[in-house]
């Protein structure tokens, strides 16, 4: 499900320079959870807004809208990013994965199951973003130390204070992942 980003991959500017759009709405295509979705957005639209307002994917939550809390974390080509800090128009052909795409019609991702089992949830508003970061961590670091887990969560704000249960859940999901045949 996750793809490593090549080190030289461009972070934005996926459009040719001559392709100037705006200030009105412009058509773009986003590949979200494996499906190409055509939409029309003004250039200032963030990826978080496009997902929530245009595609009705409201699992991605916006709490600070300036990259300070990570509630809106989604994956671009498998790497966690704050969807409030990416313009939809700059996503280009990178694949977007949201919380809705993590267990699409299938069994829950091990991190999701572990969050339930360890009660790593209180109000739940920061939960989708936390899960996206934790699942990305296990994808590239299947056997993280506790301090690696804490560091991976470092950008997330959970006002309810679920961190101890989140850390336990991620370490448990990691153990279960390793014990699988």
């Amino acid at each position: 499900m996750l793809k490593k980003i090549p080190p030289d991959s461009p972070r934005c500017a996926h459009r040719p320079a001559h392709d100037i759009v705006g200030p009105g709405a412009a058509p773009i295509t986003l590949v979200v959870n494996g499906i190409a979705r055509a939409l029309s957005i003004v250039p200032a639209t963030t990826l978080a807004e496009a997902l929530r307002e245009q595609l009705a994917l409201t699992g991605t939550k916006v709490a600070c809208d300036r990259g300070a809390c990570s509630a809106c974390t989604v994956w671009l080509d498998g790497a966690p990013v704050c969807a409030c800090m990416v313009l939809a128009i700059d996503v280009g052909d990178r694949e977007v994965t949201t919380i809705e795409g993590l267990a699409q019609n299938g069994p829950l991702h091990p991190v999701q199951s572990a969050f339930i089992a360890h009660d790593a949830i209180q109000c739940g508003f920061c939960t989708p973003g936390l899960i996206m970061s934790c699942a990305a961590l296990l994808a590239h670091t299947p056997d993280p130390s506790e301090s690696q887990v804490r560091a991976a969560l470092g950008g997330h704000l959970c006002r309810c204070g679920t961190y101890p249960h989140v850390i336990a859940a991620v370490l448990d999901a990691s153990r279960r992942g390793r014990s699988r045949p």
Partner: protein
Amino acid sequence: MSAGTRSEHYPVGIAGVSLREIERRVGPDEAPPLPPNAQLRTVGQSAPRVNGRAKVTGQARFTVDVTLPGMLHARLLRSPYPHARILSLDAGPAERHPGVRAVHLIDHAIGRAREIADPGPAAPTGRRMLYVGDPIAAVAAVTPQEAQAALDLIQVVYQPLPFVIDLEDARKADAPRVFERAVHSESFGEPAPQLPQHGNVHGPDLSASRGNAAAGLNAAEVLVEAEFRTQVQTHCCLEPHALVADWRDEGLTVYISTQFTAGIRAELAEAFGLPLSRVRVLVDAMGGGFGSKSRVGQYVLSAVELSRRAHAPVRLALDRHEEQIDSGHRPSTVQRIRLGARRDGTLTGVSIDAYGTAGVALGAGVGNFAQSIYECAHFALAQSDVFTHAGPGAPMRAPGNVPGAFAYEQIIDELAERLGMDPLALRERIDASPVRREERRAGAERIGWSRRRPPGSDPGTLKHGLGMAQSHWPALIQTNSACEVRILRDGSVEVRSSVQDIGTGVGTVLAQVVAEELGLAPEQIAVRIGDTDFAAGPPSYGSRTSASITPPARNAAYRALRQLIENAAPSLGAAPEALAARDGRICTADGRRSLSFREAAALLRTDEISVVASRSDDYGGFGHRMGDAAMARKGLGGVQFAEVAVDTETGRVLIERVVAVQDCGRPLNPRQIESQVHGGILQGISYALYEERILDAHTGRMLNPNLEQYKILRSRETPTIEVHVLEHYQGESATDAYGIAEPSIIATAPAVANAVYNAIGVRMRALPMNPAAILAALGRVPQPSGPP
């Protein structure tokens, strides 16, 4: 002894320590006594959250996720000045802006202290704005962008007026006045005996005083005296304050991120002159409140008014900046405490002078902590609110008791040191609570209290310390609290109430309690809550939700089951009294004759049995009643221990370990309780070390109105936390359960402060204990002048 009551025997005491039985007389419809958790199948087990799957898959619907056909988007115009008069206001250009569907000019502000001689609604022109962010007008348009563009077209001419932000300046006789007239006194939003008001100072409230404190202090053999200061903390709910208001001819429906659906319904019905039956308030998933989403605010009235005018649903959600400046905060305090004691530790007299500011609101008190926790016949508490030109405070997790305990639990430690007593030994002497005695014993053992060394005795630059502190919180019960249980003919079961799950997991414990009574599993109970079309439940504040809603849920399940059994008994050829629900079956005691629950339900004459039960009075009576609520005779105690390391070169405080021993009556779901205790402790550490609202003295603006410059504890600052919850029975209700949210935060900041003292040998009497404050206390940098 009233007619129809019966005698029952209830477990009381602490499991494993002092469990025994007492006799109670209870009403005829009360479910029989629930045995201790060890004898139960579901209650006391850590059932997973009923909405866990929805929350981990992004399917949980929060208020900010609600969209309705034809929905408009609203924004609020706010004052850029901390104090200004509106000389003129022209909304015409905004009204004519394309996409705009309604404009509402606010003519009467709410969400602040109320003036007694209030002249009522007035034209917007001439109104005084009292803080940066004070709402002036609201606009609804087809998109949020159009609404924002229209706001910018509203022409306002302000006359800036002198303002006061600083707490000490505001107390002066010649300070600019926030309110021109006296305001109504209140206590937690309820009317209270009127207090004096001079300038910006409202109070003092002396009502908690008893005995003769001056005489008590004179009789003391040892006196300690100190002043403590606490800062303003903001709630920072991750889901903003938000609603979608849908006004129609047939009634008003409001989807709102709230801690009290039934309360919002009552407030909106009154504000708009609607019958309660025509107002429906809903909340599904709710992204944090911590006290700030308890009541209707100006933004709520504005959105409803815009919907009424536009004949369309209106969505209004505050942005993060608005959240920080105008959604409430924990007020600041200054507390001067004098404590007198005999050489054996017995308190002879206590005097506390406290003041603080909740901006334009009341509520900067120090709670009932000091007056309740230790025995002292001579106690004086004088507390005053000081108005400043800042946004209104709001109750925040254990309001009053959090700053109150920060000060009082430190000065108790100071007394212990003066007496040459161990802090635990002094509390053993002055604390009558048998619950906290057990909590101290258990906590001291787990933290390794015997390792504690004299203050500041750690050699080297990284100094370790151990500290502890205690909590007291009143056990509150909403008597106006009802719950319905339905058994349907196919054997499915629903529990329904307007009670809302703000993240505590109340829906899960409702399923557990009902499942236990019906002999089913929690996942077989459908939980329908957060909708005022159901029986009116309690608020989710004051740590009262479990104590208020689980007893009626169990009683409703018990009565519904009796009906099911009476109906099924003839088919089993047994007397109803001989039948019970167990393991999904209705069976005789010997198990020989039985029906499955579903088979029994299929025998019903009607599609469903429905029973609504409301909260009975505590079996032993309440301490006292307060309108729709009551206070139990005994409060909730907790004890916390902290182990810290202080880097004396950088001033950084590192919390290494916290041990919390807590009481919430009968624990219904230990893992959910642990989650809440983690939250209390982490918010308490964050309050102690990091958080602080900073206002600019020159403009009245908040300088850190976001989530990066307003510092909050995150994963890397999270210590190891060990939570131990007593199983404490009192035989007061059908579940004997109480809350944990507020009891779990009160002791944290003072436990940390006492541990910091033990580490460095210098008392930290002001919050937050950030590196600058620690280094200043150590004399390594000059004392900061302090923010306003």
